């Protein structure tokens, strides 16, 4: 109702619903990991640069074929490992030698040697959280909505199908061309997927 009124008004910068419908990309469906890899290589050769593959298990060679960069997760984790280590030293030194001085068996209030187990454990604890939460962040999960799920056969990607999406952001992207291209690569079912 509102849509109809707004479109009649012809306000500057306002596009009607139909024209505003954004496209996420074109997704094709392949039988085997090898077919998927072949399709990616053909697509790269044809000049497509922005693509994403979907598979039920990590297919080795896909990252290289897509030209993906290494995951920065390792660098994130080492920072948190060092934070854990430093935090454990600080915790044990401050509680035992500053805030609450408790002499046990005449031993020094703080020493590095008996602090090692907790230093190690806290470094591991923080690193593990950094690895998991860092992976969540890099993968943008949890997420409630993603246009990939508009593809009618998206469930195949968690079962036995290997999907290739050509992103609408790709400079070479033309929906009809992309559909024809994926079909020619051997896709069993190609669809234009809404964003």
């Amino acid at each position: 109702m509102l849509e109809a009124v707004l479109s009649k008004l012809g306000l500057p910068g306002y596009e009607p619903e139909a024209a505003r419908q954004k496209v996420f990309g074109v997704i094709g469906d392949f039988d085997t990991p090898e077919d998927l890899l072949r399709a990616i290589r053909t697509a790269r050769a044809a000049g497509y640069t922005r693509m994403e593959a979907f598979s039920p298990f990590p297919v080795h060679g896909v990252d290289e074929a897509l030209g993906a960069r290494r995951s920065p997760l390792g660098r994130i984790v080492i920072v948190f490992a060092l934070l854990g280590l430093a935090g454990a030293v600080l915790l044990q030194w401050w509680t035992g030698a500053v805030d609450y001085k408790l002499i046990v068996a005449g031993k020094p209030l703080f020493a590095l040697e008996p602090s090692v187990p907790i230093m190690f454990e806290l470094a591991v604890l923080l690193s593990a959280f950094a690895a998991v939460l860092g992976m969540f962040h890099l993968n943008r999960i949890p997420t409630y909505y993603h246009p990939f799920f508009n593809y009618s056969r998206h469930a195949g990607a968690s079962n036995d199908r290997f999907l290739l999406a050509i992103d609408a952001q790709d400079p070479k992207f033309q929906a009809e061309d992309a559909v024809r291209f994926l079909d020619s690569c051997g896709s069993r079912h190609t669809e234009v997927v809404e964003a």
Partner: protein
Amino acid sequence: MADLAIDPRMELNPPLVQGGMTYSDVTDKISSIVEGKAPKQWWIAMAVAVPLALLLFACLGYLVTTGIGVWGNNSPVGWGWDITNFVWWIGIGHAGTLISAILFLFRQKWRTSINRAAEAMTLFAVACAAIYPLFHTGRPWRAAYWLFPLPNELLHMWQNFRSPLMWDVFAVSTYGTVSALFWYVGLIPDLATLRDRSTTPIRKTIYGLLSLGWRGSATQWRHYELAYLLLAGLSTPLVLSVHSIVSFDFATSLLPGWHTTIFPPYFVAGAVFSGFAMVVTLMTLARWIYGLENLITMKHLENMCKVMLATGMIVGFAYGTEFFIAWYSANQYERFIFLNRAFGPYWWAYWSMIACNVIAPQFFWFKKFRTSIPAMFILSIFINIGMWFERFVIIATSLHRDFLPSSWGYFSPTWVDIGTYLGTFGLFLTLFLLFLRFLPAIAISEVKGVLHQQVSAPHGVPAHGGSH
């Protein structure tokens, strides 16, 4: 299947996924456990497990409302079944981490079908273990202030971080947390599989929320695989540290029989030994309940038997070393405690331990026993019993005869001790059965990865009938 018998490569290296399964067969088989009705065996097992779990809660309720005097701990044996059970349960968990992390780093692909259930076992075993330190305080609602360095207005004091018991708190809680993270990360892609297969809105919502919107994109897999590798790399030294630190509880004391440098490696080997025994017990049961012969193959089980043989030998060697060092130290208290261990009032516990831990695994030298389900089931139960006795022997025999004969005593468990221990089995089994029922017990995406290598490896063994 005729060519299976002829192909010489099959003899040496049987495929890890058998029966010519395809990717979707793997999905269907593993998901069907969660999606279908529970088999009768599952209900029978639940009927045993749940009452035992209730017994645990009853015993703990009685302990909290009455006091820790309801346990048999008393002078001179101040540590009784509580710490025995704690160490035993923590040790059980170690096989899960070994399978999921260490075998992953060593690229042992056979771990794939069993790692998920073994990790679940780790979590539930740690939960059972944690009950003992928590409840031995008598006031578990206040235990957080005693165990963790929480600032508080009431006491204005901090823990003694130079005590191995504090190290233990950090080791065990880190271990539990990291194991839970590792387990959950492994589950995400499989939860997405269950989400995509869901037919009812409730299932779709629950698995949808749990799978966090996982899509299986190449980008996601790239970060995911690195995260998994990092967690495996972190868990490997972690698992070695946990039982080492548990052993420090004893080794840093001055008590004969405890004050030994051999404890950390000896405890870690024992933990892996008992853990693998528990994995074999559970896997043979799960395989029988759900008919998973094509996924949990004889090769998996045989490999686990070999690990039990190896770690059992390490444990046996450690028993010998302890005795030798006690004699070689020329310390009369050390010598006494070890002779007392084997020939004193607890001789029956000592020789049960030797029979179960040193003699029982020797059967695994023979392929006939390594490939027989009833044999490995029974032997794994013996090893579980033996490893419990090992902890009991270490704890009770070192404590019960103090330096003065006037303070000699004998530990006897009360019915609450026994009920609590049986109860932890109930809790453990209940949680494990619920896990089998509601979560994918075998890592679907990882099995597919193994299957893919099996199919595509040119010189490897082809998946039989993989073309259909």
